[in-house]
């Protein structure tokens, strides 16, 4: 099951990078929570399908282009930590920004139920009792 969860998470990033948020919407129930309160720009928490769409619309609004590349995944039970290299190109020729961050996914019966953004990868791993 945990391998399947990793596959699901990886597929979500592939689709997001292709500009398609719908797979994430379809995979999640309407009580899905995305905690992005630690994000540098526009920290927020998103809830449900509308929240997922609002999250993605926000990314499209802010950045000329944005990518999430999975560098590594770690598993603990029904949770997956995706270690990401993110790159955003600012609008109007603004400077590009890139970060190495972590998204912690929690799954229930193969469906994502909770997602939290961490600026600090080590902190995300520690939350699950994992080491760098």
């Amino acid at each position, binding site marked *: 099951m945990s391998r399947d969860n990793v596959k699901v998470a990886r597929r979500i990033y592939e689709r997001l990078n292709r500009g398609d948020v719908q797979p994430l919407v379809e995979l999640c129930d309407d009580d899905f929570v995305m905690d992005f309160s630690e994000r540098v720009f526009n920290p927020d928490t998103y809830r449900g399908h509308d929240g997922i769409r609002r999250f993605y619309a926000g990314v499209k609004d802010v950045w000329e282009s944005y990518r999430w590349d999975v560098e590594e995944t770690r598993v603990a039970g029904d949770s997956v930590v995706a270690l990401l290299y993110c*790159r955003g190109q600012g609008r109007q020729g*603004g400077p590009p920004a890139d*970060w190495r961050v972590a998204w912690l996914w929690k799954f229930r019966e193969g469906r994502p139920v909770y997602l939290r953004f961490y600026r600090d990868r080590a902190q995300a791993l520690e939350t699950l009792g994992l080491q760098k």
Partner: protein
Amino acid sequence: MSQENVEIVRRMHESLGGGELRFPDEFLDPDVEWVNPPYAAEPGTRRGRAAFEQAAASVSGAFDEFSFEDDEVIDAGESVLVLTTFVVHGRGSGVEHRQPQGYLWKLRDGRAVRFEWFNSHAEALEAVGLRE
């Protein structure tokens, strides 16, 4: 007073750089405004010292290290305009990017009451009725 303001802004800019964008407290009016352009990651105006510092912290959070080069400080009547090259390094990649920017400062009684930034010198000059 105008030349005095130019000197204040020049001194303040000379103190910036490194990994954290911090403006000297004594330089900021309690009601100081930070104005992001519409194309910024967080567009709009922040009011008050705490919000100003939060906006500066977002810049610090986006980049690993930064510096300002080739500063030209222009007396623009009621305002002071700084034309600079914002040199940033990506947090994830360390890659350097050089971005021409303009910073428009408005001061009252020796303290900044408004800071507005632009992603080009031309745009900044236009804001004070000048041309490159």
